[in-house]
């Protein structure tokens, strides 16, 4: 793995599977009486949130605390940012506090990249969502959730529906799922597909009903009203009729297919309330898996002297053989 996690495009297949496998082991911690590991004792993780968030911030905080890291939460509201402090000066302040990792959410695409490459801070930067660009840990937890229900993602058909234009979740998912070998179909009205979507791995469609019967998982995206500066569709009601997941469309899915949503949901808009609460929806599980995934990311970035190197093996057995001298032997043999 690289030092920073800015985009799922930076993850090789081995890296991605290492994160998922590590999360799987860490998830077992939840069954223990003491849900804490001493691994990151003495390391400081700063949650730097310039944009509102519930799930992501809480789950990064829980993840860091379960690994015994010190956590500093920083939200733009109530900080010097409200007085006009720049990103650079904020970063220099964090560096002075000795942050080993900075988890950053920002409304501007590329802000985490700027933090990582500017030389302002020495720690690892984890992108927790930047503008309409990427949200890598969300994609990782989505892939983890899908893998738990569907097994290996190779050849699986994943349908991502809705406001792709404003969705950082969609972009990160498309890149990660392509790395993992899944076939992604993006479904949205033409106005809500970004320019250049032809160059993304996977396909696009304007017709949800045509795609549903062959989907192994369908991921509904939130219609991001707060980012919409123009009229992208005639009315909420029309959007919901054509692209919303209701009970009727749920019936068109194969029996094993799962329904996902990165949250927060607009019930009745992109997803009907009864669908969101049905037993094929794994939306609450996605949130729970978020903690395991973020623990895995923090451990792999901060746990050693440098970020983890993914071994050439991908399964459980080869991972067991993948440490210590044997790993070096494998490197030599390659």
């Amino acid at each position, binding site marked *: 793995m690289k030092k920073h996690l800015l985009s799922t495009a930076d993850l090789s297949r081995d890296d991605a599977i*290492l994160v998922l*496998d*590590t999360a799987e*082991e*860490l998830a*077992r911690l939840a069954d*223990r*009486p*003491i849900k*804490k*590991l*001493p*691994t990151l004792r003495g390391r400081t993780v700063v949650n730097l949130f310039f944009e509102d968030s519930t799930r992501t911030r809480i789950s990064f905080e829980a993840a860091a605390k379960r690994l015994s890291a010190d956590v500093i939460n920083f939200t733009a509201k109530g900080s010097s940012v409200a007085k006009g402090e720049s990103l650079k000066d904020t970063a220099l302040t964090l560096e002075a506090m000795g942050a080993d990792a900075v988890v950053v959410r920002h409304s501007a695409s590329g802000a985490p990249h700027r933090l990582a490459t500017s030389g302002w801070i020495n720690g690892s930067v984890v992108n927790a969502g930047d503008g309409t660009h990427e949200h890598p840990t969300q994609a990782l937890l989505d892939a983890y959730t899908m893998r738990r229900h569907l097994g290996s993602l190779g050849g699986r058909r994943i349908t991502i529906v809705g406001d792709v234009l404003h969705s950082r979740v969609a972009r990160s998912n498309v890149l990660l799922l392509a790395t993992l070998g899944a076939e992604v179909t993006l479904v949205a009205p033409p106005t809500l597909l970004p320019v250049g979507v032809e160059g993304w791995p996977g396909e696009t469609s304007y017709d949800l009903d045509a795609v549903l019967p062959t989907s192994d998982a369908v991921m509904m995206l939130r219609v991001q009203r707060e980012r919409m500066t123009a009229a992208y569709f005639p009315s909420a009601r029309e959007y919901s009729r054509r692209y919303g997941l209701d009970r009727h469309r749920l019936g068109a899915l194969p029996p094993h297919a799962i329904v996902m949503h990165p949250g927060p949901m607009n019930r009745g808009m992109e997803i009907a309330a009864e669908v969101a609460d049905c037993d094929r929806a794994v939306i609450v599980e996605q949130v729970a898996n978020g903690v395991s995934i973020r623990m895995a990311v923090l*451990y*792999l*970035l*901060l*746990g*050693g*002297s*440098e*970020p*983890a*190197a993914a*071994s*050439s*093996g991908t399964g*459980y*057995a*080869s*991972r*067991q*053989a*993948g*440490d*210590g*001298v*044997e*790993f*070096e*032997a*494998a490197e*030599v*043999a*390659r």
Partner: protein
Amino acid sequence: MSAPIPQSEGFAGGTPDKYGRSPTRAVAATSDSDARVASRRTDRAAPAASDESREVFDAPDIGRALTRIAHEILERNKGAGGLVLLGIPTRGAYLAHRLATKIAQVEGAMVPAGQLDVTMYRDDLRLRPARSLARTEIPREGVDGKVVVLVDDVLFSGRTVRAALDALNDIGRPRAVQLAVLVDRGHRELPIRADFVGKNLPTALTETVHVRLTEHDGLDGVVIARAVPADTERDGRTAEKPGEGAAR
């Protein structure tokens, strides 16, 4: 007696096995019944990794040692009641299950066996890149009030066992903890001692001990190699899990 094995014996070729190890590391136990006597034979296929290696323990030896340990565990604890065997991955886990089978043969009762990954509790995590985790499987009965026997392949610095004790502490409160190892190679760095030892193996720090188990390596055997890979100096050695990395 100590005739060098001809290079044409097949294993000297170049393809790595399914675990990605270079072949010479896995071949030290050959079918040669004289292998234990032929203690200074040369392992030519990996000139950089190991110059000489000798097998000190073959498959029947391992079987006998485990049988004895199983009896000793039963003797010490007056039967199999309240016992839980926890192996330290990778090879300790296989040994724990073998011991459970042996105990079942003697006592007729199955002793719960599981495995305990200690990676997150190691004191040397920051000396090398973050490592992938192995699985922790605690038997359904739990460890509270039980006698936990930790099982590992090689006891070396004692740091792995210390990490295991810490890990165990977060899982429950056993009535007692005992330690069984297949090989004790000495050079302890912590005040830790094994209760059950398959074989005491005096070694030099420049040597490495490789335990091979059928479940993981395709054959049983313990080999000492005078390996001097790049990182075998003192720092590199303690940076590894003695029972795992450095022991190989």
